[in-house]
């Protein structure tokens, strides 16, 4: 009897169970469906955190498993948010325009479209819908774009970068340049996405009469489902021979080539797949955040992502989720001004200012002393220890013993 997929990936079942339990608990404590203990804004924060966990899984696939330190995955996250945001803005604005014109003569389609354009683009001094908004009125098209646009960008970028065999820190710089360029481009008013104003009012879902209390819970559910599916997909990808090849590429890509695997195709595949996962996470995140602007795609966001995954523990999916959830929630707490100030005689530590220092310090400490990160705690609980032979291989003529064995 062959062991099944779940038997070989024990973390999947545990993860899905925990996720379901968490979602149920939040629902039962929410304002809309239960005890009114968890506020709607807290539900939104938790829903957003689930989306961040999803992009952390993507980052773990690309960095922890394949060894590509991408510092640009938030570009795909942001693009996914923009794509869904375009539909949300247009559809919402159409509702408003139609409502305000009610009772007067019915508007022609041209008048309607002009009115929507003026509403949306008045803020950047324009009254025309740019060409890229052509399909913005159609939800199916924009949902398709959530996957297609970031996927295509990642594919083109990856194709160019991996084909030239750019690796290591150079690739990281390149991905950072990509996200910076994209964010700077979107900051321009004539880029067609409202410049630094970004897209706003995304928390209102057109066509739904529900209030924010209910919407926030629905989005929490959607985010939990996406995270669960993302975890399943990632486990599937990493469990079989494909996972072996990914880890092989991380550890010694030249050797993988000599086994006959086209390393470049694998990197491109993983890079594009994770970009799509990131984009889906973004498309679920920004309706909960309510606003998106180009600053979200600044390189610092992607660097945070790497920090989450490092603190959580690279190379394990639940590590990435733990890191993203823990660090982003703690960060919310510290930067929200709710953490009590620490008085040290003449100096008072204000956590809003000092949180980043603390984060940076813990990143350095984790990298140096606990490379397995938070997920190392799971090993500790399970009583696993890494076997270590120690010593470097002896020279060819000293036989097959390694340093430590030879001492005996």
């Amino acid at each position, binding site marked *: 009897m062959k062991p099944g997929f779940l038997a070989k990936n024990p973390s999947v079942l545990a993860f899905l169970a925990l996720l379901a339990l968490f979602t149920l608990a939040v629902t039962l404590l929410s304002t809309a469906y239960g005890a009114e203990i968890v506020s709607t804004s807290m539900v939104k924060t938790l829903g957003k955190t689930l989306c961040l966990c999803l992009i952390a899984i993507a980052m773990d696939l690309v960095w922890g498993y394949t060894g590509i330190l991408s510092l640009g995955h938030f570009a795909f996250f942001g693009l996914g948010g923009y794509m869904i945001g375009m539909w949300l803005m247009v559809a919402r604005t159409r509702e408003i325009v139609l409502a305000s014109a009610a009772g007067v003569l019915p508007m022609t389609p041209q008048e309607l479209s002009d009115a929507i354009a003026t509403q949306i683009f008045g803020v950047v001094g324009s009254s025309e819908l740019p060409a890229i908004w052509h399909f913005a009125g159609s939800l199916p098209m924009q949902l398709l774009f959530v996957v297609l646009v970031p996927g295509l960008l990642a594919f083109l970028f990856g194709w160019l970068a991996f084909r030239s065999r750019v690796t290591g820190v150079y690739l990281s710089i390149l991905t950072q340049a990509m996200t910076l360029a994209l964010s700077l481009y979107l900051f321009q008013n004539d880029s067609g996405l409202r410049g630094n104003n970004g897209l706003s009012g995304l928390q209102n879902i057109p066509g739904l009469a529900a209030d924010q209390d209910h919407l926030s819970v629905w989005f929490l559910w959607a985010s939990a489902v996406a995270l669960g599916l993302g975890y399943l997909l990632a486990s599937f990808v990493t469990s079989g021979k494909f996972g072996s090849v990914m*880890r092989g590429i991380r550890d010694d890509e030249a050797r993988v080539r000599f086994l006959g695997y086209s390393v470049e195709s694998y990197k491109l595949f993983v890079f594009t797949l994770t970009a799509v996962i990131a984009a889906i996470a973004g498309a679920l995140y920004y309706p909960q955040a309510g606003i998106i602007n180009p600053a979200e795609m600044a390189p610092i966001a992607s660097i945070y992502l790497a920090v989450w995954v490092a603190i959580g523990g690279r190379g394990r999916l639940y590590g990435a989720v733990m890191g993203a959830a823990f660090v982003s929630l703690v960060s919310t707490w510290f930067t929200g001004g709710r953490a009590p100030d620490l008085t040290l005689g003449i100096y008072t530590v204000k956590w809003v200012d000092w949180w980043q220092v603390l984060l940076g310090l813990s990143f350095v400490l984790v990298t140096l002393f606990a490379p397995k990160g938070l997920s190392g705690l799971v090993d500790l609980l399970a009583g696993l220890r890494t076997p270590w032979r120690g010593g470097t291989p002896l020279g060819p003529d000293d036989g*097959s013993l390694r340093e430590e064995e030879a001492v005996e």
Partner: protein
Amino acid sequence: MKALLEVSGISVSFDGFRAINNLSFSIGPAELRAVIGPNGAGKTTFMDIVTGKTRPDEGRVLWGEKSVNLLRMNEAQIARAGIGRKFQRPTVFEDQSVAENLMMALKAARAPWKVLVWRPRPADHARVAALAAQVGLADSLTRKSGELSHGQKQWLEIGMLLAQEPRLLLVDEPAAGMTLAEREQTTALLVDLAKTRAVVVVEHDMDFVRRLNCRVTVLHEGSVLAEGSLDHVTADRQVIEVYLGR
């Protein structure tokens, strides 16, 4: 007999240093060949060129019955065409189990989308177990290969090479880091393999080469100095001067 691999007139320079100088070499489909030469003779560079790691400045490298030009192919394509390489230092994926290492090397489709849905069948498990037994690692299938001793890693890499089922094996100093008993085992294995495929062994150790009992190619300063039986080349005056005479 038509040659399996035919290398003709290749040259390559690194920063003005001629590592390979008008080198020609050919090997039949079932032949064992030892390549010897002093340090810097171009042995490793020669293997790099055949496996696609280094591109020569001039010359031709033709492969198989259809005389495919290997210089137009990248490392992965060349490996898929049937050339396997064993490095001097054992390079196995230390973070993965012996079984995973062998499974990855097993001859099968290599395209990402095919590998993604590929799941081992009972026949594949059996093949991996057989390979592990052949290289003396039958009890270590689930161990991480990083835990293995140096010699065991060498064997695992040989096992991975066999799993690829290559038509030409390039083996760089296979006896390095092995005990005397293991060396004898290696010799027997290489001689046995050469009955069905081409095997090129790069070696320093003359005793080892003598045991292989095969044709020998002597490299010196990037070109072939002499070729023939070991007794023939060791009697060659030039060879004695540059290599054996020291």
